[in-house]
């Protein structure tokens, strides 16, 4: 697999900023993912060295948490809730619609790089189920129609 280009200075900056925090690893991983969208495999040795950990330990942490990713995401990430309250409000039909509309499954990114789709188990928006989050914005009472309207609008902004 070829390595994707990523901003090495950003990674170094994040590590330098946070490495002296108690329990610095998660804040560093968050910092990197916030800055460049994912955690590059070949940033792992640098992180490990800064924290005096083994590469295996750092890798083990990255792979344990669902939120961290090791490949670049689409321009926007859609987190769709799969949990009970949303199921009670027909999230399964919504899920089918979204997958068909985007032409991707969970953990995948559309061919044009516009959207990634991830499952999530509750967004705390259960009183307005079914829910999804696009980047940092929650959307409630989502229907197939409102989903289409939301992403059409986003595509217009992106264009």
């Amino acid at each position: 697999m070829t390595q994707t280009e990523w901003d090495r200075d950003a990674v170094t900056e994040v590590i330098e900023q946070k490495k002296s925090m108690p329990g610095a690893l998660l804040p560093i991983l968050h910092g990197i993912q916030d800055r460049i969208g994912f955690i590059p495999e070949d940033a792992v040795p640098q992180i490990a060295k800064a924290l005096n950990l083994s590469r295996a330990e750092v890798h083990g942490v990255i792979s344990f948490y669902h939120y961290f990713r090791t490949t670049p995401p689409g321009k926007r990430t859609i987190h769709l809730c799969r949990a009970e309250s949303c199921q009670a409000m027909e999230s399964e039909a919504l899920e089918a619609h979204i997958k068909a509309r985007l032409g991707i499954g969970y953990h995948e990114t559309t061919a044009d790089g516009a959207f990634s789709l991830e499952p999530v188990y509750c967004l705390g928006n259960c009183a307005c189920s079914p829910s999804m989050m696009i980047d940092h914005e929650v959307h409630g009472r989502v229907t197939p129609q409102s989903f289409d309207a939301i992403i059409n609008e986003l595509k217009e902004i992106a264009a």
Partner: protein
Amino acid sequence: MITVYVPRDSSALGLGAERVANAIQVEAAKRGAAINLVRNGSRGLYWLEPMVEVATPAGRVAYGPVQPGDVPGLFDAGFLEGKAHPLCQGPTEEIPYLKNQERLTFARVGITDPVSLDDYLAHEGYRGLRNALGLEPAAIVEEVTTSGLRGRGGAAFPTGIKWKTVLNTPAKHQSAGQPIGTRNAPEGGSAKDALPEKYIVCNADEGDSGTFSDRMIMEGDPFVLIEGMTIAGLAVGATQGYIYLRVEYPHADVALNQAIAAALEAGYLGDDILGSGKRFHVEVRLGAGAYVCGEETALMESIEGKRGMVRFKPPLPAIEGLFGQPTVVNNVISLASVPIILDKGGKYYADYGMGRSRGTLPLQLAGNVKRPGLIEKAFGMTLRELLYDYGGGSASGRPIRAVQVGGPLGSYMPESQFDTPLDYEAFSAIWAVLGHGGVVVFDDTVDMAKMARYAMEFCAIESCGKCTPCRIGSTRGVEVIDRIIDDQDRAKNLALLRDLGDTMLAGSLCALGGMTPYPVLSALNHFPEDFGEKSVAQVA
């Protein structure tokens, strides 16, 4: 100048509150009306969100649910004077859903500007802390014990007892050869910042589906949580607090950090709290999408920078917790309930409730229900009152068939159990869980075999992997339920499923594996027909 309120609560934003706020600004400017727009928390009447309120001489008047397109019409109708309009709900405090609540912990949520310290102080904020500063640590703990407060994060352990253990356990001096947990502790930190110290950890992971009260507090009144943590610090002699916040709550992250900065600036946090010489700092740490990190020992591993693997207990976190030090781990609502206890006294709080469930519980009504929302009430109301008096029945208009209470590890309850009072002991007596107070409603189109399968699948996805019954058992559980749904060897597989449930119940280290049988077996026991069984409910 007229004050207009539009929530900044993330659920209200998810229904268009930001666009409504903008539309109101634009319309007011167009008409030359001077308004003061406050972004409050949510009142928790989610079927009315975005709910706009306007302050009138006779009190606040509510309009909802408001969409941007409604705004010109609202101005035409004179909503700035609280006049009639089809969306007008009348005086906010008179809406029965709200009026009949007993809001102690949520007293300010939806009323104040969440990140305004002045507003917090004007609404009885920090009175608890001022009282606590005049008390000995043991007396603070005593007040919390008197209140009868039990942990609101799920396990309902008495908070006073936990605090007492931490108070009575001295922090350890750490040698150069630090234990694993402290390996990432500051190496070159100044002596003042070095260990030993005790910690207050706020469990803000709120991983349970169907729950959102922690989020509402953090977004709607972050100061009350910070005040509660500061009081906890004074009570046990801890100087550092961490709020372990799930990454799914970015708005709470912003509100908490704004409030922390304001509290620090005004001397309510820091090295010399209100001139008392007492020190307390708070920092927000983000999780990374692992349900098991809500379990307190996994949570501490995560803050320490490790995989969220559950630790064996003992030692209890109260004795050897974060970085090996005595640590209070409490849920958001537990900590946010402390300020009023220190303000009005433990007895005042304990006077609410029933049996051994004292005070109030913020119930969270979600799923297929007409009026979903947050209802804070003293313990003791029945589930049926909650579902019908507050919730108004199902959203679909079909009969309610099942409710799951207490998150994804809670039992599914059939209509025959709807008269159960909301009380920890009454729930455990019927093999159900009140937990965090989340209630998810399903109408009669629900397929309970599918819900049981989902519970197993969830356990498989979120298992930390430490014990076999949870790690492997949950995957086997999905397969067994699939075979039951497929009608392959049904009787044999049903027996196998019960067996598996027993193994998971008995052989798991934490409640993830240990309680997954609750949703699974309760579904099977109460809704056998969905599993192709004709027999009546069997007690687990």
